[in-house]
């Protein structure tokens, strides 16, 4: 048999050339790596120094006192530990409001995200020319912080949960849309093509060919987002959008004497987040396990 596997016989000169070229490449690569590292360290260091000098308190003094405030809160909460359950009950309705805002916003934002993401995924898009447009729309929706949309909407619509919900939904649509379209890009086009070859419409190709593949990932991202949105809707309370964040901010800024409320709200919030975290990771594992 002939030696198709081995091409030309090993030439000493040729390997030497390849060796030199490779060594040169390895050296430049090492050099670039070194430069990158130095630049990064320099950026970090100078950035830190600058932030430190523009801050009222310095880092090294502050780090020693980090626990002053938490311990103040905790000691007061510990003194009034008997009151905590009652307080938690008192704040529970606000918590429910917060979760409702998050759930509605996630649902609304998620639906929009699905549509936007399918329209902006290469290979799947209904109008391939408009992919860029839909992507920019998502970019803008994502770029504006919720709190800004909320503040503007609060001015237009007045305080309360609706502006918060819309604000979070807009942001969610942008953020999930990007993640979803990444998922879509990894979806196999084979089933889509299979359906297309039977003469299916675009909507059929998407719902029957793409959704079953990506739905678990979508859901897992949406659950993750739901968690984030619970936090976000709690935070929007800080600017007057209702819910538990509003109570938290008022208790916090009143200070000594109401730290028991702070503690109670904190416990509620934390339990909620852990609860939904566990719930969503449970479902995500289940989905991943099936896939």
């Amino acid at each position, binding site marked *: *048999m*002939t030696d198709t596997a081995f091409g030309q016989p090993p030439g000493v000169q040729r390997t030497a050339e390849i060796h030199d070229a490779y060594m040169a490449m390895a050296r430049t690569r090492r050099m670039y790596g070194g430069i990158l590292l130095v630049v990064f360290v320099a950026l970090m260091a100078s950035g830190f120094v600058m932030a430190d000098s523009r801050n009222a308190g310095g880092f090294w003094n502050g780090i020693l006192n980090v626990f002053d405030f938490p311990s103040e809160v905790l000691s007061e909460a510990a003194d009034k530990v008997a009151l905590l359950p009652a307080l938690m009950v008192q704040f529970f309705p606000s918590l429910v409001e917060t979760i409702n805002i998050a759930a509605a916003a996630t649902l609304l934002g998620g639906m929009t995200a699905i549509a936007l993401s399918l329209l902006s995924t290469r290979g799947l898009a209904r109008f391939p020319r408009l992919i860029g447009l839909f992507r920019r729309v998502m970019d803008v929706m994502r770029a504006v912080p919720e709190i800004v949309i909320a503040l503007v909407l609060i001015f237009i619509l007045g305080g309360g949960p609706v502006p918060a919900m819309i604000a979070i939904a807009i942001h969610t649509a942008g953020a999930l849309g990007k993640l979803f379209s990444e998922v879509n890009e990894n979806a*196999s086009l*084979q*089933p889509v*093509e*299979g*359906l*297309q*070859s*039977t*003469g*299916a*419409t675009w*909507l*059929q190709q998407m*719902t*029957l*060919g793409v959704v*079953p*593949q990506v739905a678990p990932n979508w859901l897992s991202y949406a659950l993750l987002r739901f968690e984030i949105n619970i936090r976000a809707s709690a935070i929007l309370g800080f600017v007057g959008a209702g819910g538990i964040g509003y109570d938290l901010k008022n208790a916090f800024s009143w200070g000594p004497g109401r730290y028991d409320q702070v503690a109670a709200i904190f416990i509620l919030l934390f339990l909620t987040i852990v609860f939904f975290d566990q719930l969503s990771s449970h479902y995500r594992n289940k989905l991943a396990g099936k*896939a």
Partner: protein
Amino acid sequence: MLTINDLTRRFGDKKAVDAVSFHIERPAMVGIIGRSGAGKSTLLRMLNRLTDASAGRIVFDGQDITALRGRDRRAWQSRCAMIFQQFNLVPRMDVVSNVLYGTLNRRSTLATMFNLYPTADIRRAIGILDRLGIAEQAPKRAEALSGGQQQRVAIARALMQDPAIILADEPIASLDPMNARIVMDALRRIHEEDGRMVVCNLHTLDTARTYCDRIIGMRDGRVVFDGSPAQLTTGVARDIYGAGADFSEAATSTDIETLDRHQYERGKARALV
């Protein structure tokens, strides 16, 4: 019946399919062979209108296929079923649903989005699965099936379309020999029993010789052979594959019965160790 006229497809500078013309008079089983990149898949995809032609025409029963748009194109696709090398099923859905996707073109988008199909269709789907010997798998997810079973599901979907032509793009390339045989037998049977035209890209010469009535050989986008299995001599095959005289694929043959045929010559005696 099916006439292809100077069909060409360019990808950038490259002509994947280059002025291909042939004519198929009546429902036959046609095999297309050629090495990787010869343009086999592109040709089939143009037939199904998954890929648009750059030039040339496809005419089926007097209708110009290349000119169809939108709804008409989808209608043609539903008459011209396609089977893929990687099966292209929806892996997470059950077998019957996958087969029912063959009816999508005829059903309303809304109903199908909720996976609602007429009972008669479901009965027919199971009948087809039974005919292909995989009715037991009906409730399973497509991804849970072996390759050969998945390919038969794909064939069932194609049959569900009740097509005039079945196109198969290397239907057995990702299957082991046993399953390959089952799938090719199924395709042949459909051709013979239902009298449907089957156009099949094949990787392996033997398969083409064994199953097809007519073989078209492609190389670099052009048709370089068109004839009966008997006309496909070793010389012609070497020509199609562009292999030198020393090239033999015997080493990777998977045949069991061809045992004592050839012994790889290494010019050295080997003892059992």
